[in-house]
């Protein structure tokens, strides 16, 4: 029996669009000099509270990979080739499984050596539906990752509300002080460093932006009740991330393709009767 007999050609086209965005993101990583090969012989690691990361490092696998430059080359090339193969054959689960394992390894190595949590892990979550063979399973997992995406943003708003920072009149203008320090040290001035100084000295405007960001994040809660606003939510999240890059110097690479799945959520997700549409 053909497991994918009911997949519409337009859905496959949408899969390819999302995977192509993912490919662009991976290329941005690689052309920025962030790839497995770049970390070879890098002996400094530091972890945050992340038991799963500790477990992977305890196996010695990341250290083994980084001790062999040819293995690093192989992993980088394999990631690119498998991603291209998945764009061509988005229903091939073994391509997706292999790619996901390699990207998890890359993410582990990157985070361990970055010595700091990288929050943009959407490029891993986006592959979860592709590792299942049947249409129904793919759709269920898409639905699951969609809820997680929404939860990710709602939780960000929740923490801002819980800590009370959103009600503080001078939170953001203090929080942004450290964001552009290397630029000031190296005298690499731009419109962003000028804006950073403006925010530090104008706490009312900074508070207005912070409340705006919290509202954008909180808007994700709509998605738990209906898929009708998913396109707007995707636009809100993209706006949030690009504003984050401008204001906080935190770029969204690794998260863009994941957010873009919201543009196709009705097509991708599981929709048994009565589930919010």
């Amino acid at each position, binding site marked *: 029996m053909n497991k994918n007999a009911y997949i519409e050609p337009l859905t496959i086209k949408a899969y390819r669009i999302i995977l192509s965005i993912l490919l662009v993101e991976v290329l941005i990583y690689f*052309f920025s000099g962030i790839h497995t090969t770049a970390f070879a012989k*890098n*002996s400094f*690691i530091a972890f945050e509270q992340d038991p799963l990361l500790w477990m992977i490092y305890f196996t010695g696998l990341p250290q083994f990979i980084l001790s062999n430059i040819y293995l690093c080359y192989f992993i980088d090339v394999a990631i690119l080739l498998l991603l291209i193969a998945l764009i061509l054959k988005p229903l091939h689960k073994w391509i997706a499984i292999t790619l996901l394992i390699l990207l998890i390894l890359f993410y582990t190595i990157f*985070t361990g050596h970055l*010595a*700091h949590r990288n929050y943009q892990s959407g490029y891993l979550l986006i592959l979860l539906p592709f590792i299942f063979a049947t249409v129904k399973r793919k759709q269920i997992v898409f639905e699951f990752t969609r809820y997680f995406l929404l939860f990710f943003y709602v939780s960000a708003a929740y923490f801002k509300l819980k*800590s009370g920072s959103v009600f503080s009149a*001078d939170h953001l203008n203090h929080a942004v*002080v450290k964001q552009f320090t290397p630029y000031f040290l190296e005298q690499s001035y731009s419109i962003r460093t000028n804006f950073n100084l403006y925010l530090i000295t104008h706490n009312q405007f900074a508070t207005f932006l912070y409340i705006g960001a919290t509202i954008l994040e909180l808007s994700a809660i709509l998605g738990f009740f209906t898929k009708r606003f998913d396109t707007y939510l995707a636009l809100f999240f993209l706006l949030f991330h690009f504003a984050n890059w401008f204001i906080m110097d935190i770029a969204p690479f690794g998260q863009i393709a994941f957010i873009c799945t919201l543009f196709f959520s009705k097509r991708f997700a599981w929709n048994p009767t009565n589930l919010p549409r």
Partner: protein
Amino acid sequence: MDEIKKIIESICKKMHKLFLYHLFKEAKLFFLFAILFILAYVIVLRKQMDMLLFPINSMFSMQTARDFSTSTYALKLNGKIVKITDDPYLKKDFSESSLQMFSKWIKADRKDLMTGLLERRITDTNTREKYLKKLAPLPNTINTWPVWFVKFHHLPVRVGDGVEIWEYTFDVTENTFKLRDSTLVIKQTVTNE
């Protein structure tokens, strides 16, 4: 009794709209996974821990110090700063973050979260060493990492070159960043390329 029946019926009606309800009806294994995932998340949230692949997004929600001073680190090769802000964003971010953590590790007498945690949790020295070998930087990292950093920026490095890491502290006053202080974190001569 009728009231209770009505309430139960209304709850059942609402449940038909829940993703988890449909998972339970149609894909029990996925339902089990979803429940375990949610439970794991509750534990993680309560313990204020991050998790691999699924980080909790609490960035910039915590209250920060109420002053306008900040610091950053820079590596100098033969007295000249290795510039990171001309690099593409991801490389700049990696350089800034790892240089900061390396400097903090040196300043804390080569101790970090993992060494502290293992010292508290594992009393047997041999077992602790076994874990530390895998989960903490090796002792020679202090010499090898600065050289790796220079090479990461495609700069030539030779035996005898001088490498320094400095911490720079700034104050934001009169609408500008003013350098208040600079402190040497580490100074060494390259002995092995």
